[in-house]
C-alpha cells in the first residue's frame, strides 16, 4: 500500500479527515432509543442530542469523519475526487475507536459518523469500515450511536454487517435524476445507489417484523391523526419499486461475524437516510420534492437531507467558483420536507409542473394557504386537527394544545399566543369564537404583501448568513472619550 502515508499524527489526520467530511449534511443522532448497560459505554436517546454548534451554526452531534479521503472516483463536485491535489490521510481502525470512545466519555459527541472515500474498490473500503465498527462495538464495548455511510457497489454481506452494527445506515443519492448523476459522477450509476437502498429498506422491514413491530418506520405522532398524509396506508399501497430481496437472504446469516448475532442487535434501528445536492444542476424544486416524497414512500427513508452546493472545484459542467450557495432555497426545501413529514401535505399540493419552484419570499405553507384562501378563515374552536395543521403559524405542538384546551374552556387570542401559535402569521387565516384579531380583508394581494413584510428580515438573514456586520460605534472612528466637544 504505497498510497497510505503514515507520517501524520492522529491530530493531523483528524484535521484532514474532519475537514473532508464536513460537506456531509446528516449529523442527526435521533431515531434510536437504547438504554445503557453496565460494563458498556453509552446509550441512545430517541430525540437525538447535539453537543456543540460550529461556526456555521450547524450542530455537532457525531464525530463526523472519513475513514480515508483517498478516492479512486472522480465525481466532479467532490473535494476528495482523485484529480484534486489535497493532503490525503487514512485512519487505522484503532485510532477511530480511541477517538470515539474518549470523546464520548468527555461528552463531546453523541457517537460516530463514519464515511469514506473509495480506497482501492468499494468492497475493500466497506470491509475496512465494518472492521472498525466491529472493533468499536465488541472490543471497546461502545453502545452509543453510529451512523455509517455505505459505499455504492460494496458486497451485500458487508452491507448487512454494517447494518447490524450501526444505528443508521445511509447512501447518498447526491443528485435527484439519473442524467445529472451520469454527468457529474461518472463512476456512479443510479442503479448502484438505489439497489442497496432498496435492499436495506427491505431488510429493515423484515427485521422489524421479526421483532414484533410494524414493518414501516415510526413517524411523527401527528401522522396517525391525519387521514391522507404521505405515510398513511392508502398512499403506501402503490409502491412502484420492485422487491429487492433482503440482505439476510442474499448474504446468508452465516456470513455475519459471530459477535453480531450473539448480541441480537436489530438491523439499523434508526433507519436510513440520504442526501441530495441542490444548485449544482438545473433540477427544479418540484423534481426534488417529488423525489423526496418517493423516497419516503417507496424506500421508507427516515430523512432526506439537502445540501446547498458549495463550489469547490472548477469544472465546465459545474456552476462558477464564485456562485453563492443557495441557502434560502435549501431552507425552503427543508420547510417543505417538514410539511411532508409532519403536516400531511403532499408534494403535488405545494408545487406543480406549471409552477415548479418555491417563492423565495414566502415559506411554502403561507404560499399554499394564499393559493387556497377559499378554505379560510377557520375557526380554531371548531376546526379539525388536519385543518388546524394547515393554518400558517400553527404547528403540531400548538395544534395539539388547541385540541386539548378547547375541551375544557373557550379559547381567546391571548391564550392562543401563550400556547405557541405564531399570531403574526396566523391571524390572517383564523377566527376565534367568530371574531378576528384585526379587521383585515381576506385578499390574496393584501395578505401576500403583509406576510412578505413580516418575513423580510428572516429571509435576509438566511440568504446573507455569512455577512459580517456589527453595531457602529463612535470609538471605531478614533473619537476619544471626552476628546470631542
Amino acid at each position: 500500500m504505497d498510497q497510505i502515508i503514515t507520517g501524520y499524527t492522529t491530530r493531523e489526520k483528524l484535521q484532514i479527515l474532519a475537514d473532508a467530511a464536513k460537506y456531509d449534511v446528516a449529523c442527526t443522532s435521533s431515531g434510536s432509543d437504547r438504554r445503557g448497560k453496565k460494563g458498556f459505554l453509552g446509550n441512545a436517546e430517541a430525540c437525538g442530542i447535539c453537543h456543540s454548534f460550529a461556526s456555521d451554526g450547524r450542530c455537532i452531534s457525531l464525530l463526523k469523519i472519513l475513514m480515508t479521503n483517498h478516492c479512486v472516483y472522480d465525481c466532479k463536485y467532490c473535494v476528495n475526487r482523485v484529480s484534486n491535489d489535497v493532503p490525503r490521510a487514512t485512519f487505522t481502525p484503532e485510532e477511530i475507536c480511541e477517538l470515539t470512545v474518549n470523546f464520548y466519555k468527555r461528552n463531546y459527541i453523541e457517537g460516530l459518523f463514519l464515511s469514506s472515500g473509495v480506497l482501492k474498490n468499494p468492497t475493500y473500503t466497506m470491509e475496512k469500515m465494518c472492521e472498525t465498527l466491529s472493533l468499536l462495538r465488541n472490543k471497546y464495548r461502545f453502545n452509543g450511536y453510529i451512523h455509517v455511510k455505505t459505499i455504492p457497489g460494496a458486497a451485500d454481506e458487508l452491507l448487512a454487517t454494517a447494518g447490524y452494527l450501526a444505528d443508521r445506515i445511509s447512501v447518498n443519492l447526491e443528485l435527484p435524476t439519473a442524467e445529472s448523476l451520469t454527468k457529474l459522477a461518472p463512476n456512479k450509476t443510479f442503479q448502484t445507489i438505489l439497489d442497496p437502498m432498496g435492499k436495506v429498506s427491505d431488510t429493515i422491514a423484515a427485521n422489524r417484523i421479526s421483532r414484533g413491530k410494524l414493518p414501516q418506520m415510526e413517524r411523527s405522532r401527528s401522522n396517525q391523526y391525519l387521514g391522507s398524509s404521505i405515510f398513511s396506508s392508502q398512499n403506501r399501497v402503490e409502491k412502484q419499486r420492485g422487491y429487492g430481496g433482503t440482505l439476510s437472504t442474499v448474504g446468508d446469516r452465516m456470513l455475519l461475524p459471530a459477535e453480531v448475532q450473539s448480541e441480537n442487535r436489530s438491523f439499523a434501528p434508526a433507519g436510513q437516510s440520504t442526501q441530495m445536492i441542490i444548485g449544482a444542476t438545473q433540477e427544479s424544486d418540484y423534481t426534488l420534492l417529488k423525489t423526496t416524497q418517493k423516497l419516503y414512500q417507496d424506500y421508507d427513508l427516515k430523512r432526506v437531507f439537502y445540501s446547498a452546493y458549495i463550489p469547490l472545484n472548477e469544472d465546465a459542467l459545474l456552476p462558477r467558483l464564485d456562485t453563492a450557495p443557495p441557502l434560502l432555497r435549501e431552507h425552503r426545501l427543508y420547510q417543505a420536507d417538514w410539511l411532508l413529514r409532519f403536516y400531511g401535505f403532499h408534494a403535488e399540493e405545494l408545487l406543480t409542473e406549471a409552477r415548479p419552484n418555491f417563492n423565495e419570499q414566502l415559506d411554502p405553507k403561507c404560499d399554499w394557504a394564499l393559493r387556497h384562501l377559499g378554505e379560510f378563515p377557520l375557526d380554531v374552536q371548531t376546526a379539525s386537527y388536519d385543518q388546524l395543521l394547515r393554518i400558517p403559524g400553527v404547528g403540531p405542538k400548538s395544534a395539539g394544545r388547541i385540541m386539548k384546551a378547547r375541551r375544557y374552556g373557550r379559547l381567546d387570542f391571548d391564550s392562543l399566543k401563550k400556547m405557541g401559535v405564531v399570531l403574526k402569521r396566523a391571524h390572517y387565516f383564523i377566527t376565534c369564537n367568530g371574531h378576528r384579531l384585526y379587521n383585515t380583508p381576506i385578499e390574496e394581494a393584501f395578505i401576500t404583501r403583509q406576510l412578505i413584510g413580516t418575513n423580510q428580515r428572516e429571509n435576509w438573514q438566511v440568504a446573507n448568513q455569512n455577512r459580517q456586520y456589527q453595531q457602529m460605534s463612535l470609538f471605531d472612528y478614533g473619537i476619544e472619550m471626552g476628546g470631542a466637544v
Partner: protein
Amino acid sequence: MRVFTCKDQFEDSMTCIYDAWSWALKNGHENLRLEREPIFQPTLFDEYTHIDADMEKVTKVVRSIQNKISMEAYIDIFYATLSIEPDALDTIYGFLRLGFRVGARVCSMYTDPHVMRILELRRRVGNEAHYFREFARFSAMGDTAYICHLEPKNNVILLVGEHFADRMPSEHWMIIDDNRRQAVVHVKNQENYLRYLSEEEWLRLSRSELYEDSYTDMWRTFFHAIGIRQRENRECQRNLFPIWMRKHAVEFRESKKNN
C-alpha cells in the same frame, strides 16, 4: 396577608404547602402567599412565617397529589420546584388549588393562568436540563475519573446526572453545580447521590477544570475543522449555543499550552 417562606428544596417546599394549606382552611386561600428564601425585601404589613421540612407532611402532600390529581401533575410540580423563578412556589399552590378541585384534567386546562405558568416552568427546567445534557463537558483526571462543572440557572444537575448514569454506568464521574456548590457523584456501577460540598472540597475540586489532555486539543481541532467557511453564521451559532452556556465548554477556550 400571611407569607409562608421556606428553603429552596423540594422537601421544604412541600411542607410549606402543607402548612399554608392547613392555615388557609381557617383563614382563606386568598389571604396567603408562598415565597422561597432568601427574601431580600420583606413588605411592611405582611406577616412572615418560616417553615422547616417535615418528612411526614412531605409524604402526605406527595401522596395526595399522586392519588387525587395525577402522576403527570406530580412531575410538573417536581420540575417547578427546581425552577429559579421567584413565583414558582406560589404558582404550585395555585395549580394545586385548581387541581384538587377538578382532578387529573387540570393538566390540560391551558386557559388557566396557573396551569399555563406551571407548564412554562416545567418547560424551562426541562429545556435547561436538556441544554446541559448537550453542553456538559467532562475533564478526565487521568483515566480514573471524570469531572464536569456547570453553572445552570435552574437546579438541574440531578436531571442531568440521571442521563449520565444511564450513559456511563461503569465510570467514576461527578457533576458539580458551581453556583449552588452541590455535586452529583457517580461511583462505578452504583447509584448516583447528591453531595453538598464543603469549603475545602470545593476549593480542591474547582481546580479540576484546568486539566487538559491530548483529546481536549483534538476536540478543538475537530470543532474548528468541521465548520464550513462559506456558510459561516455566528448569529445562528449564538442562538443555538448561547454565550453564557459556553463558560465551561472547552472548545471555546483557548488552549492552555499556547499561553
